[in-house]
């Protein structure tokens, strides 16, 4: 089928159907000027309905036609059209020119400076049951009994068909994209249109507008001749004339040729429709088809209209209730999640826990949650993850929805299948956290009411006929790859959920940030304590080691002296009295015991192994210096820490090396107590095979007599402490296979230490 041949239904979008300038054959129209009450327009068939030919009454006052009394009543009528309206018939009697009485049913309405009267043949008496109050109540109560949308639509279709006796009554529901779906049907035919979808183009926009303004439309005979409306100048009052008559609210308005063709294509002989209007929007349509012509009495028409407007009202209630119910359900879920998050549970876990509930509520099949860098998939999601970047551009107040995701982002076939439509909820301002719901395409979710057949048929005259099945096929083609759209109710629910989840996410983020900060602080404190603990333990260990060494010297001397003494006595041939010999031996044994005791104490207190790891000396230096400054009492002290971020990491015990820095820095600070300039400089530099650290001060320097013993224990140059600080530094650095020494400087002293770099394992 080429484009040129295509049946173009949108062509009727341009047609000014309210200026059609003609009425249907089953009634007559007379329009008067609202001020002068002179008759300006008449349909050419007036004689049959009111007994006057057009020529007799055009330009005459209304009273000429219907008499003074009736004419006076018109003055008092409220004639402005109202929506939704109910037909308010005026059963009117007046005299023909020949003196006989005319009884007519008249529907008057005012519009655009005119009052339009539409005359119908009166119904023969007696009045049918529809006029009976009780019967009406009984029927309407059937509608009222219905509980949900489908029940209501079913009942409405059935009751209306009972009243008008048509072959088929369908209830259409319009989606937000204006396409229609048959949600209920009552018919005496074998075929069914129930569940079928129709493209938006089936009902052009002007028609849609008229459906909203003019709720009731009856076409008793599709193919009856149109009756032109003529003005006083004798012209037909259509769109092409100088003064067209606006038939927006007319019941008799003639049928547009396009619509005639459309109905003929479906084999329809008579048609009737009642608009279902909720919240001033065209919600749907009661579409009635009869497969031959069928004139309906005005009382039936009126009752059908009453049923239609009752259905509208009930629909509105149901819609509002559904919206409310969905909203409440969303609020409930949001409230539950909020409560749980506030009591400490993770937002991610809660969304996972509530996922199936949420997905049922908003009618989706898949869900992707990206929160805190983690991804959670629930339900039907594509194998290959989707890149939603461009979807983010669609966000409005944190929400974006689409029924055709492939037109927004690039997708493969599998992705298209799972995610024809999607709803995006951003959960953070930075776009890091978000929630996406995925809807499958209609192909998967729609309950097809039968295989779409041919779109067009060609009849014996060679005219293309469009079948309703064809319409359906057209629609499904148009919808292929699309999902059911996210309607306003669902979007409201999404907004509710998003508002809560967004707030909770920022709460959780703050909580995590706070926890991380606390952890960092605790770690800092722990390190500091470790350093201080190690300082204590190291000092104790070093003290024990020093004591052991220092005590061993005199103990050795004693043992040697005693043994030497005994030997000298023997050499002098002095016979040592037995008791004296025992005493000498005891003395030697006791020195050994003392030595052993010292060894045990030292063993007990001595440091354990080094806990080495690859460390960045810059960091360790900073920590050691910071700690030294805590107890520093020099307000004018200037501290330079010259870091070098390019140095290799060294394999060392950070706590022990921190201890060395701490001791060196403390010594330097103490040495500067009485100096004019108080400058402490710590530098680190890489040299071949090792990293070298220097600690220099502007203090009193190291006296020559102390320099020799400076790394020995108990030789203190400061007045405080035991004098094991530098001895400890040496022990630690030597345990790291490093070297420590000092050099005098022009002002003060510089201590150096080097730690080797293990070339092969440099991290």
């Amino acid at each position, binding site marked *: 089928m080429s484009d040129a041949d295509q049946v173009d239904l949108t062509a009727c979008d341009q047609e000014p159907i309210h200026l059609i300038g003609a009425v249907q054959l089953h009634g007559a129209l007379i329009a008067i000027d609202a001020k002068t009450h002179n008759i300006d327009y008449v349909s050419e068939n007036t004689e049959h309905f009111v007994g006057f030919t057009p020529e007799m009454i055009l330009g005459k006052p209304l009273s000429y036609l219907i008499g003074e009394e009736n004419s006076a009543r018109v003055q008092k009528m409220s004639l402005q059209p109202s929506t939704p309206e109910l037909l308010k018939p005026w059963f009117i009697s007046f005299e023909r020119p020949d003196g006989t009485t005319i009884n007519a049913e008249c529907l008057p309405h005012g519009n655009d400076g005119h009052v339009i009267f539409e005359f119908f043949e009166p119904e023969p008496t007696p009045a049918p049951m529809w006029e009976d109050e009780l019967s009406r109540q009984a029927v309407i109560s059937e509608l009222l009994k219905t509980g949900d949308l489908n029940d209501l639509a079913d009942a409405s279709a059935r009751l209306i068909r009972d009243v008008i006796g048509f072959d088929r009554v369908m209830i259409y529901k319009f989606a937000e994209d204006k396409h229609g779906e048959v949600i209920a049907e009552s018919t005496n035919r074998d075929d069914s249109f129930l569940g079928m979808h129709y493209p938006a183009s089936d009902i052009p926009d002007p028609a849609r507008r008229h459906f909203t303004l003019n709720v009731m439309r009856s076409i008793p005979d599709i193919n009856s001749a149109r009756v032109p409306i003529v003005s006083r100048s004798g012209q037909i009052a259509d769109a092409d004339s100088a003064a067209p008559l606006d038939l927006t609210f007319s019941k008799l308005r003639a049928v547009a040729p396009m619509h005639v063709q459309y109905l003929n294509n479906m084999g329809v002989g008579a048609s009737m429709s009642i608009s279902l209007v909720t919240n001033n929007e065209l919600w749907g349509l009661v579409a009635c088809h009869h497969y031959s012509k069928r004139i309906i009495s005005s009382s039936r028409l009126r009752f059908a209209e009453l049923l239609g407007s009752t259905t509208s009202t009930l629909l509105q209630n149901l819609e509002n209730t559904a919206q409310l119910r969905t909203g409440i359900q969303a609020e409930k879920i949001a409230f539950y999640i909020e409560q749980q998050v506030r009591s400490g549970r993770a937002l991610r876990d809660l969304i996972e826990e509530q996922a199936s509930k949420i997905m049922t509520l908003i009618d989706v099949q898949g869900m992707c949650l990206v929160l805190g860098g983690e991804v959670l998939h629930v339900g039907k999601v594509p194998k290959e993850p989707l890149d939603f970047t461009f979807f983010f551009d669609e966000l409005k107040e944190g929400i974006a929805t689409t029924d055709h995701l492939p037109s927004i982002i690039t997708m493969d076939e599998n992705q298209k299948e799972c995610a024809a439509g999607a709803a995006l909820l951003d959960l953070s301002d930075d776009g890091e956290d978000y929630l996406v719901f995925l809807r499958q395409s209609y192909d998967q979710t729609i309950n097809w009411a039968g295989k779409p057949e041919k779109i067009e048929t060609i009849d014996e005259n060679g005219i293309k006929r469009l079948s309703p099945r064809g319409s359906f096929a057209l629609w499904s083609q148009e919808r292929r790859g699309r999902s059911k759209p996210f309607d306003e109710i669902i979007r409201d629910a999404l907004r509710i959920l998003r508002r809560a989840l967004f707030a909770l996410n920022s709460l959780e983020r703050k909580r995590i940030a706070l926890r991380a900060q606390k952890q960092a602080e605790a770690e800092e404190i722990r390190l500091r304590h470790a350093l201080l603990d190690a300082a204590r333990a190291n000092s104790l260990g070093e003290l024990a*080691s020093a004591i*052991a*060494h220092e005590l*061993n*010297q*005199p*103990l*050795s*001397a*004693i*043992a*040697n*002296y005693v*043994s*030497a*003494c005994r*030997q*000298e006595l023997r*050499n002098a041939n002095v016979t040592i009295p037995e008791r004296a010999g025992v005493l000498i031996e005891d003395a*030697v044994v006791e*020195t*050994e015991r*003392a*030595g052993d005791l*010292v*060894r045990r104490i*030292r*063993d*007990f207190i*001595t440091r*354990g*192994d080094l806990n080495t790891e690859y460390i960045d000396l810059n960091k360790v230096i900073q920590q050691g210096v910071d700690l030294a400054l805590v107890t520093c009492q020099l307000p004018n002290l200037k501290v330079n820490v010259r870091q070098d971020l390019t140095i290799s990491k060294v394999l060392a015990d950070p706590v022990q090396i921190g201890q060395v820095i701490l001791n060196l820095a403390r010594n330097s600070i103490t040495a500067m107590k009485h100096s004019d300039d108080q400058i402490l400089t710590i530098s680190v530099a890489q040299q071949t095979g090792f990293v070298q650290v220097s600690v220099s001060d502007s203090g009193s320097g190291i006296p020559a007599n102390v320099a*020799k*013993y400076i790394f*020995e224990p108990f030789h203190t140059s400061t007045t405080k402490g035991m004098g094991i600080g530098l001895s400890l530094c040496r022990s630690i650095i030597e345990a790291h296979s490093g070297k420590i020494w000092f050099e005098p400087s022009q002002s003060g002293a510089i201590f150096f230490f080097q730690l080797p770099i293990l070339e092969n394992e440099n991290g």
Partner: protein
Amino acid sequence: MDKDADKFSIYVVEDDDAVSKSLCALLTAHGFETIACTSAEQFLDHYDPAKKAFMMLDLRLQGMSGLQLQTHLNALNVKIPIVVVTGHGDVPVAVQAMRAGAVDFIEKPANEDRILKAVETASGLLFNKRPAIVSKKIVADRLEKLTDREREVLHHLLLGKLNKEIASELDVSQRTVEGHRSRIRNKMQARGIADLIRMVG
């Protein structure tokens, strides 16, 4: 036998006055000639290569350390036997010294017998009396008797580790390590680490 032929001197290199004096006193009492040096530098000053002598060397010295002196002498190709004298905490250094050629080591405080034994070992060398070398076959047989755990402990001992360090590394009590040590000594027929190093180190 020429009386002078078995005459020799002992350099006592020790910076602690009391230790030096007492050790010299003991050695003198036993008829040995001692030369006291208070530092490595002083030893290098006094050293007379013509003299038959060995050295009792304290490892912790101010200025040049014992170990540095040993390295220095090795570099000069001075082959003077060295008995290392050490405080308890310096065992790893002593082990290092043994590896570098020291003939024995004594932990302070040491009893008379231990000191005399070391003198005997060192002086023996001066007269080409090698210390009794245990054959590799015998060492292998003795090692064979050790349990896996004992062999592990031995390995650590040879690195000069303290009982406490070994205990922490093997995750056992110090008492257990002491037990292993004494069993190792028995099985290997060694008096101490010095013997062990001579055998397997």
